[in-house]
């Protein structure tokens, strides 16, 4: 008897090994899917000057995964994140990470951030039929890319409000731009110039800088020499703190209008951040919206902090966008883990005008060109914290 049990056990082991190999080789995708949770790939800035973003974005997504798994999964499907690092904008690192995610982890969806890494991995996503969701990158070049859907306002949508503030509120006629020398920064610079042309102002200095640069002495000297009325910033993360602290120390006292603020940039910039203006997606954690409340309370319980909009965007990706798509695929009898299923379902949902729930209040609808329209707010740093300085109503900034 013991001999037979041992033989059965041995064959069971061989069968399991064979099944794992077959599934691992992708010859039997359904079996691979049923082996464990549905894997969601993420390529974020986990290290480097933008590590703040990687931290909050992964936290937002992880919270959604935990909430979904605690309630039994989506259509019985449990979820798991596989997080990779693009080192704060390194396109090569993003491509390596994407290849690993699609070839080894076989993820059907990747949540991505930053413009250059997102643009670098988009051809891989198209080739391997992987859905890309971006909630961080802002470059105008992200519009109209197959397989890519952006759930945040892009530079072409935000720049008009930055220029509007500078022209209408500051009375600026001569603008200088300082921006990342990549797709996001160049996109923002182009959008600012276009908005400025329409508003009747002129851009008197355009200064690109490397991502993660810490010294801006040459750029700021050139900007100061151009005597602008305001500086418009297409930089993100810690860079904002370095720019503000050095600009003020070098005697550049004109208003600085940007599109990003982080607690670490505030720490680096210190008192020089006072008065800094940003136009950005307006996520208000204090609203009574039930989705917002569930998110904010869950985030605070898990991480001891109030979330900001980057965490919100990636929470939404998992909690609402992917959940909806998985339910739709499963409802049709499909396998959401199979490459192409989620992407095809997203295209169908967008074509049907499906509105996804949102923690920004109400819901959000994605356009066929992969863009979204979300509330925008103008904020100003006061006493070391962001204070709402204006809302956008009818395309104009209102107090």
């Amino acid at each position, binding site marked *: 008897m013991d001999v037979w049990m041992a033989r059965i056990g041995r064959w069971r082991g061989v069968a399991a090994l064979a099944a794992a190999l077959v599934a691992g080789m992708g010859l039997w995708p359904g079996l691979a899917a049923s082996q464990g949770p549905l894997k969601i790939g993420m390529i974020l800035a986990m290290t480097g*000057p933008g590590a*703040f973003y990687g931290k909050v974005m992964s936290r937002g997504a992880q919270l959604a995964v935990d909430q979904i798994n605690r309630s039994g999964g989506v259509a019985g499907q449990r979820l798991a994140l596989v997080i990779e690092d693009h080192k704060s904008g390194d396109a090569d690192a993003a491509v390596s990470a994407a290849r690993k995610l699609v070839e080894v982890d076989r993820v059907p969806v990747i949540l991505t951030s930053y413009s250059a890494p997102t643009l670098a991995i988009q051809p891989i996503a198209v080739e391997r039929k992987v859905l890309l969701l971006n909630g961080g990158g802002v470059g105008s070049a992200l519009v109209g890319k197959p397989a890519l859907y952006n759930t945040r306002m892009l530079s072409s949508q935000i720049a008009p409000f930055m220029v509007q503030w500078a022209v209408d509120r500051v009375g600026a006629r001569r603008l200088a731009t300082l921006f990342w020398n990549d797709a996001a920064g160049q996109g923002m610079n182009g959008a600012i110039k276009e908005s400025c042309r329409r508003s009747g102002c002129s851009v008197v200095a355009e*200064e690109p800088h490397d991502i993660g640069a810490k010294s801006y*002495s040459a750029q700021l000297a050139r900007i100061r020499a151009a005597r602008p009325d305001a500086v418009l910033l297409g930089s993100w993360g810690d860079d904002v703190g370095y720019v503000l602290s050095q600009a003020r120390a070098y005697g550049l006292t004109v208003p600085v209008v940007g599109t990003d603020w982080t607690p670490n940039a505030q720490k680096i910039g210190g008192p020089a951040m006072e008065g800094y203006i940003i136009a950005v997606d307006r996520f208000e954690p204090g609203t009574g919206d039930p989705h917002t409340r569930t998110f904010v309370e869950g985030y605070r319980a898990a991480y001891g902090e109030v979330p900001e909009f980057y965490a919100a965007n990636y929470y939404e990706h998992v909690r609402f966008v992917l959940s909806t798509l998985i339910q739709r695929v499963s409802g049709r009898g499909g396998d959401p883990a199979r490459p192409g299923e989620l992407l095809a379902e997203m295209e169908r949902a967008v074509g049907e005008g499906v509105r996804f729930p949102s923690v920004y209040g109400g819901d959000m609808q994605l356009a066929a060109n992969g863009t979204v329209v979300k509330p925008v707010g103008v904020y100003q740093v006061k006493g070391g914290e962001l204070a709402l300085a204006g809302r956008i109503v009818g395309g104009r900034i209102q107090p």
Partner: protein
Amino acid sequence: MLALAAQLAANGLIIGSLYALLAVSWGLIFATTKTFHFAHALTLTLGVYAAVLAVEWGRLPLALGFLAAGAVGAAVGVAMELGVYRPLRRIGASPLNVFLASLGLLVAGESVVLIAFGPDARPLPGWRLTGLAVGPVAFTTVEALWMAASWVLVGLVLGWLWTTRAGRAIRAVASNRELAQCVGVDPERVFVQVFAVGSALVAAGGTLLALREAATPTMGVHPVLAAFIAVFLGGIGSVPGAVLGALVLGLAENLGGLVLPGHWQGVIAFLVLFGALLVRPAGLLGVRTR
């Protein structure tokens, strides 16, 4: 245009002064030991984190933060010499192997710093960045400190090298190791001395830098790369050459801003090095050896 030129020239002198300190710190080690010590960048980083810990967590005054940086830097440098480079020399490792070992130390060390302290930039408290102006030229109090501290430290090193017995022994080993050994100088002891002094200097230079730019795990590479360029530009083996190379590099990087966008500084640095070495292969003050 004149105001911009004056501002850029001032920026060049300011950063050139800091480069001079860093170039002397690396050039001293390279000229004496012939070790391409790329992990000097890690020493800088560890020294700066020591200062941040001392000032932020230990609540010590900034001056003691500098001392902590110097002490940790010296200890790290000596540990690298005794634990890595000396064993490699004893087994007859090639310069390329030594360089690769140094590169490995840097990569591994940066990863350890990343794990230990996290990826976020950590400002070094204790000094407020405020502005000063002389005519059209604006600069900060930190940059004034860079210039003062760099030139004092460079002057002290030059004085030490030229007026003390230990300094003469170092110059003797740098000039001809075998001959120095014949007259009773112990090269291995000299190596430890230059690693201690050079590493303390780079840690102090890094801490000066962190007053404006905060501490990050990878902060050492760019300034130490500038030090390499300055040393090769000025002439290997020549401490005054390293100082001159640093000033030329700082001025070229910044004055390039008169005609090129500011982010071209890195390109300008290598173009200057390339051009100078074409004209003077041994560097600006280097002596061509046969």
